[in-house]
C-alpha cells in the first residue's frame, strides 16, 4: 500500500512538473515519465496488457509525435526565456496550492459508497473480452486510427497547397 501511495504521489508530481516547467522539451520528457509511472500503477492493478499499451504508445509514440512537432519551434533568447519563466510562475503558482488543498480535503472524506464494489466477477481473460465480447470496439478502433491518419494527411496536404 505504501508503494501505491508513493507511486500516486510521484504520478501527481510528475504531472505537475510536466505542466509547470518552462521548456516544452522538458514538458514532453515529464509526460513520458508520467506515463511510465502510470504503467507501474496499472501493473499493480492487475492490468498488464493495458500497462504495456500505455508504456509503448503513451510513453513512446506520443512523446515522439510531440518531439517532431516542437523541432520546428525556434529557440528562445535568454531574455525571452526569463520573461516566459516569470509568466509561467504568475500563471501556475496556484496549481500546487489547489492540488495540496484538494488532496487534504479528499483525504478527509470517509464515506465510500459500498455498492460500487458489488460487481460480479466477469471474464478474466482479456483476449476473450477483446475478441468476443467487445469485438465491435476493434472495428471502432480501426476506423478511428484510419480517421486520424487521413486527417493528418489531409491537413498537411492542404498546408502544402497554401504554401
Amino acid at each position, binding site marked *: *500500500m505504501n508503494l*501505491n*501511495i508513493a507511486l*500516486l*504521489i510521484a*504520478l*501527481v508530481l510528475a*504531472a505537475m512538473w510536466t*505542466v509547470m516547467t518552462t521548456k516544452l522539451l522538458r*514538458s514532453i520528457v515529464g*509526460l513520458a515519465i*508520467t506515463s511510465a509511472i*502510470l504503467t507501474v500503477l*496499472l501493473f499493480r*492493478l*492487475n*492490468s498488464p*496488457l*493495458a500497462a504495456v499499451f500505455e508504456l509503448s*504508445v*503513451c510513453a513512446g509514440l*506520443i512523446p515522439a*509525435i*510531440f518531439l517532431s*512537432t516542437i523541432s*520546428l519551434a525556434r529557440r528562445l533568447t535568454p531574455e525571452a526565456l526569463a520573461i516566459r519563466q516569470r509568466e509561467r510562475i504568475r*500563471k*501556475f503558482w496556484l*496549481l500546487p496550492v*489547489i*492540488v495540496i488543498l*484538494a*488532496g487534504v480535503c*479528499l483525504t478527509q*472524506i470517509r464515506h*465510500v459508497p*459500498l455498492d*460500487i*464494489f*458489488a*460487481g*460480479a*466477477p*466477469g*471474464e*478474466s481473460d482479456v483476449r476473450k*473480452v477483446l475478441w468476443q*465480447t*467487445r469485438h465491435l*470496439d476493434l472495428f*471502432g478502433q480501426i476506423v478511428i*486510427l484510419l480517421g*486520424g491518419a487521413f*486527417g*493528418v494527411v489531409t*491537413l*498537411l496536404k492542404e*498546408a502544402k497547397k*497554401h*504554401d
Partner: protein
Amino acid sequence: MIELFSIFAIGVVLTLIVGFYCILVTDNLIRALIGVEILAKGATLLLILAGYVTRQTALAQALAITMIIVEVAVIATAVGVVLCAFRHTGSIHASSLRNVKG
C-alpha cells in the same frame, strides 16, 4: 479494498485537476494538448481502478486499450492542426488564432 479505492481515487482526482488547470491556463496549443494527455491518463487510471474494484479487469483493460488508441488518433490529428496553424500564423499560441473566421 475500500482503502485502496480511496487512495487511488484521490490520485485520479488530483491528476484530473492538474490536466484541467493546464488546459484552462495555458495559451500554448502544444501545452493544451499535453493537458489533454494528462486528463487521459487520469481517465485511464480511473477505468482500470473501476475494473479492479468490481473484479472485471479484463473488460476494463479492453476499454483502456480502446481509449489509448483514441488518444493517439486525437493527439496525431490535433498536432496536425497545430502544425497547420503554425504554418499560417508562425505561432503555436491560441491568441494568434483570433482572426479565424468562418
